[in-house]
């Protein structure tokens, strides 16, 4: 099948695993552009809520487990022209590599089968790279002792080794530094059919990743480089990341760039390819450790860092577009043949749900991340990893201070998520930087940056601030990092905190406007606002994948609604919001990790109509103009029942609407949930529920969203829980209901009213064609009205 003949595309969607990266924005951008280009799309997805707002673009949404069998079944039934696996995380690549030879003329987009297979099969990966003269770590998998010893003689120590059992499981990797340790390892056990796998050890090497895009005409462009602060041995996504890779000089950078392009060529990757490298700055050895021919956490991070619309570009490249002749939304041309130039540093700091220390190793343990921008290493460290508001660094500092030198040294040797705090404490005690660098593998410039920050906080603590010190602080990177007021108040103002545009794509794409800003320092303020009245939205900090999904969804709907109602949405958060491309032109987004934007007074107060706060009380403003959108518990009675409902209500202070009711029933040890059950409720139930809601809302006279949980006990409904603001049900309510809850809320906030003479029928009215059925909170199905009626009758029969 030629690319010109492709009209229908099957997209392999993400699985609902919490371990996967959230690629919902990338998915939105991908299907948005393909829709605009006229392709018909279907998607296989496990959880339709993960489609967020992109649901409208699909011809068919198949809600099934995302497995090879289900994809094959779909292909055999509907014969799509092509399959796009680049937005489905690692699982999608596994599925595609298993379909080789089974899907007839259906084309696989993005790369060839071998590429997808090589991301899983180490032997294939090494074979292909070795053939192409690309540097790869030497590897052997054998059960022949002689062969193993001979291999080790050729590569030398240190090595890592593991046993691969016949059931495909393996023991963990063991570090082996000499012949003695090797003999011990070999003598350990002798199970038949066990193969021993050995690799040259690259522990302590620096890790880099390069992301390139490539078109089918073999034009490639390096989109960005990422450098891990921690060395190899700590999982890439548990490590602090910095982009661009600052520690590579020109010859190292060009060498790794050439390798990346060559690798993409070897596997004929058309679209995107992220290549990971291990680099030893002493011996100048470099190895390719893995490659990722799909959208990933790296591409998401680089999209933040460079503003290059990677997801959109990749979708077009996969379908045969020329790198320099792409288009963005509404047909505007875009030159993808740009290697984005960034004049700022972007950093990603991993986050854990709880603050305690964790040992870090090759497996990922972090739950989310914070991304910050700045113009110096000190600035990004101050805003991110050392930002007390995110990490409780002050508590860490107090705890580390109690340790004696030996205990502290112990913590330096074993990497934990506190490593930067540990190193700061060690430097306060005058541990030598080169020694610390040698032990931890963290490069000297980072330690120098930490030292600068320590010196600077000493100056502040001692109160020795004068004109000269202010200059020194600026030199040390204390710009726009919480001390900005201090700098502003000093007599000799060296710099002042301002807001700068996160522009990156320069010469070639002047028309590609980016309204993404961050607070920093400088002379000129770059914040550009329109004359429109504004609604400010304060975004929450995220700690899990579910949080990300909810935040993405709510912010998208809010921004869209504010814009459609003729106002300018300004999204301010401690870290960037990953806005879909189509929204980036419409919203002004400001990343403000220290929440300084208010004190800077750069947004005219009179132009702000309301502030919608999703940040869970970060806005300390007592002003009535602040609308708290995050959930606040008003009532909680401990009562459980087999049948319950969750109702979302939007109120104008007098009347209300109930766009969606989720029905929950426990039957046969399973939990069934039906969204938007309002259309199937009996008149009595409806009246009961309406009565309870009216009763509960009697004393509230503000525009607000309320969430109720009601339990049916002895044929009567009782309110067991009541929240003001948004709960995590918001996506399901919004998806299941034909009333746009968030848009309705924005309209009410602008002063619109709900009709006085609303009948109960109208209050609960809903006209959806598809209903969401969840079983045990996991298995989702979309059913039409008849199917749903049938299911409900079945459950109610059991109830009787």
């Amino acid at each position, binding site marked *: 099948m030629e690319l010109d003949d492709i009209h229908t595309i099957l997209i392999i969607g993400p699985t609902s695993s919490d371990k996967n990266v959230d690629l919902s924005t990338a998915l939105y951008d991908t299907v948005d552009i393909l829709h605009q280009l006229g392709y018909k799309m279907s998607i296989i997805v496990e959880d339709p809520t993960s489609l967020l707002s992109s649901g409208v673009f699909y011809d068919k949404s198949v809600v099934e487990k995302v497995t090879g069998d289900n994809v094959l079944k779909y292909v055999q039934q509907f014969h799509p022209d092509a399959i796009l696996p680049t937005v489905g995380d690692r699982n999608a690549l596994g599925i595609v590599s298993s379909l080789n030879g089974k899907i007839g003329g259906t084309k696989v987009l993005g790369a060839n089968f071998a590429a997808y297979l090589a991301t899983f099969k180490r032997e294939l990966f090494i074979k292909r790279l070795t053939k192409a003269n690309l540097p790869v770590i030497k590897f052997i998998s054998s059960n022949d002792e002689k062969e193993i010893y001979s291999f080790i003689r050729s590569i030398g120590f240190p090595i890592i080794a593991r046993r691969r059992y016949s059931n495909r499981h393996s023991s963990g990797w063991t570090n082996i530094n000499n012949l003695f340790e090797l003999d011990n390892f070999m003598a350990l056990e002798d199970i038949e059919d066990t193969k021993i796998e050995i690799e040259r050890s690259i522990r302590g090497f620096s890790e880099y990743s390069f992301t390139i895009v490539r078109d089918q005409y073999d034009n490639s462009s390096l989109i960005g480089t990422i450098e891990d602060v921690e060395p190899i041995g700590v999982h890439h996504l548990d490590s602090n990341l910095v982009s661009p890779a600052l520690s590579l000089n020109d010859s190292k950078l060009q060498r790794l760039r050439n390798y990346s392009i060559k690798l993409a060529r070897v596997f004929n990757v058309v679209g995107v390819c992220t290549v990971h490298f291990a680099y030893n700055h002493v011996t100048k050895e470099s190895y390719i450790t893995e490659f990722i021919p799909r959208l990933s956490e790296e591409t998401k991070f680089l999209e933040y860092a460079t503003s290059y619309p990677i997801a959109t570009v990749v979708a077009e490249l996969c379908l045969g577009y020329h790198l320099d002749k792409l288009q963005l939304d509404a047909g505007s041309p875009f030159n993808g043949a740009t*290697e984005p130039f960034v004049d700022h540093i972007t950093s990603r700091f991993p986050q854990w749900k709880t603050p305690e220390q964790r040992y870090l190793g090759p497996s990922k343990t972090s739950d989310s991340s914070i991304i910050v921008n700045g113009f110096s290493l000190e600035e990004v460290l101050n805003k991110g990893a050392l930002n007390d508001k995110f990490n409780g660094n002050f508590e860490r500092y107090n705890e580390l201070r109690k340790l004696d030198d030996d205990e502290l040294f112990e913590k330096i040797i074993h990497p934990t998520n506190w490593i930067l705090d540990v190193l700061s404490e060690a430097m306060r005690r005058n541990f030598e930087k080169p020694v610390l660098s040698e032990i931890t593998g963290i490069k000297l410039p980072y330690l120098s940056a930490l030292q600068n920050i320590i010196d600077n906080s000493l100056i502040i603590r001692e109160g020795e601030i004068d004109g000269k010190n202010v200059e020194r602080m600026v*030199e040390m990177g204390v710009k726009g990092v919480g001390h900005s007021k201090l700098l502003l108040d000093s007599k000799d103002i060296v710099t002042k905190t301002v807001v700068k545009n996160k522009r990156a794509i320069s*010469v070639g794409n002047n028309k590609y406007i980016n309204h993404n800003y961050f607070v920093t320092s400088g002379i000129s303020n770059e914040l550009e606002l329109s004359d429109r009245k504004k609604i400010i939205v304060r975004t929450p900090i995220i700690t899990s994948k579910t949080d990300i999904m909810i935040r993405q969804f709510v912010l998208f709907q809010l921004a869209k609604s504010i814009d459609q109602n003729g106002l300018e949405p300004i999204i301010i958060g401690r870290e960037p919001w990953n806005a879909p491309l189509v929204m980036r032109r419409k919203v002004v987004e400001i990343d403000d990790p220290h929440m300084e934007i208010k004190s800077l007074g750069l947004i005219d107060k009179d132009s702000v109509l309301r502030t919608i706060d999703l940040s869970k009380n970060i806005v300390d403003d007592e002003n009535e103009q602040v609308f708290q959108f995050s959930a606040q518990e008003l009532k909680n009675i401990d009562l459980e029942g087999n049948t319950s409902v969750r109702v979302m209500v939007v109120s104008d202070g007098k009347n209300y609407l109930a766009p969606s009711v989720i029905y929950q029933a426990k039957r046969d040890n399973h939990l069934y949930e039906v969204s938007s059950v309002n259309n199937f409720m009996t008149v009595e139930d409806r009246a009961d529920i309406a009565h309870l809601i009216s009763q509960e809302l009697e004393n509230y006279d503000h525009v607000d969203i309320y969430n109720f949980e009601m339990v049916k006990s002895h044929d009567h409904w009782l309110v067991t829980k009541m929240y003001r603001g948004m709960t995590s049900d918001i996506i399901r309510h919004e998806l299941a209901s034909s009333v746009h809850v968030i848009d309705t809320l924005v309209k009410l906030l602008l002063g619109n009213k709900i009709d006085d003479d609303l009948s109960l029928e109208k209050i609960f009215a809903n006209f959806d064609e598809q209903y969401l059925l969840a079983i045990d909170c996991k298995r989702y199905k979309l059913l039409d009205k008849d199917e749903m009626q049938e299911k409900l009758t079945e459950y109610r029969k059991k109830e009787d």
Partner: protein
Amino acid sequence: MKRYLILEDGTVFPGEGFGSSIITTGQLVISNNRTGIEQSVTDPDTEGQILAFTIPSVGNSGINRDFYESINSQCKGVVIGSSSLSTVDDSVSFENWISSLKIPGIKNVDVRALAKHIDEHGEMKASIMDTHDEHAIDQIKALVLPPDLVKRVSTRQSYPNPNMGLKIVIVDLGLKYSILRQLSYRDCNSIIVNYNSTADEIINLHPDGIIFSNGPGDPKDLPNVIKTIQTLQKNYPLLGIGLGNLLIALANDCQIEKLAHPHHESSLAVKEVASGKIDFVNHNHSYTLDQKYIGSSDFIVTNVCVADGTIEGIRHEFLPIMCVLFEPEAAPGPADGYYVFDEFIDLVESAKKQEGVRRQWN
């Protein structure tokens, strides 16, 4: 020590001094090079310039003296935002290196605001000083930048870069060492001559091909070189790089113009017109060829800049002459442009073959 970067139009950017403490004045150039500080500072193209680097945290990657593009530093000053005091490979720090070169520098400058200002108002003169009064600004305005930049950087005496292959004469207009490196990789037996060498002097060296190198300044300040080209081009394959390209164009009745947005970026896309192939190469030029004159000349356009359509490469329809405005030797930047040297070698070899055939027939 507090110092100021003062622009010709009176705009002042405060910062902190490092390196030499002398007062310096020169043409301010915004460099968007991602890496390769060593190459940029020692590039003869930067003679008489104050270089403002827009990359953050300058010097993290260390300083490598193997990357020098000439023996001495050429630029008159450096402007940076943030720098790193330590380097990843434990080599000398950026600031100490600049001090050892005795170049004045200024850091903690809002280089982004500076770059935006220059983008809007065009390239201008600037000075790094200790004060920023009216008198200082008047001094900058009154200063006339020297027109003999090429004379300052060109070799005074001819010297060889021996090898066993083709004999290439390089007219040094501000030659970067990386051009010699590329020729060495291709076994070329090169001789580097002063920019003012006459056509006869060059012919006496019996070259197989001649390269007019990159260099600083306005090509119109070099009428003698234009005359030399007019004599040589009839009999020898020529390669023009950067300034060399502009001079070859002027020698063939083309005109040049100053770019509204000069190209000083280590990785900018260039498209080969014939094949559509896109390469990322180093650009360091403020002038380009005037499109109006190319159509009526004997040149065909071979390369254009993808971003703004600027002509980046031309080739003569009848004579063995090829030119590129970008820097195919990279240093710094991607190696995508190395093919230009291969093509030139092919051009020289085929010209040699034709010459042999011609001799046989005559």
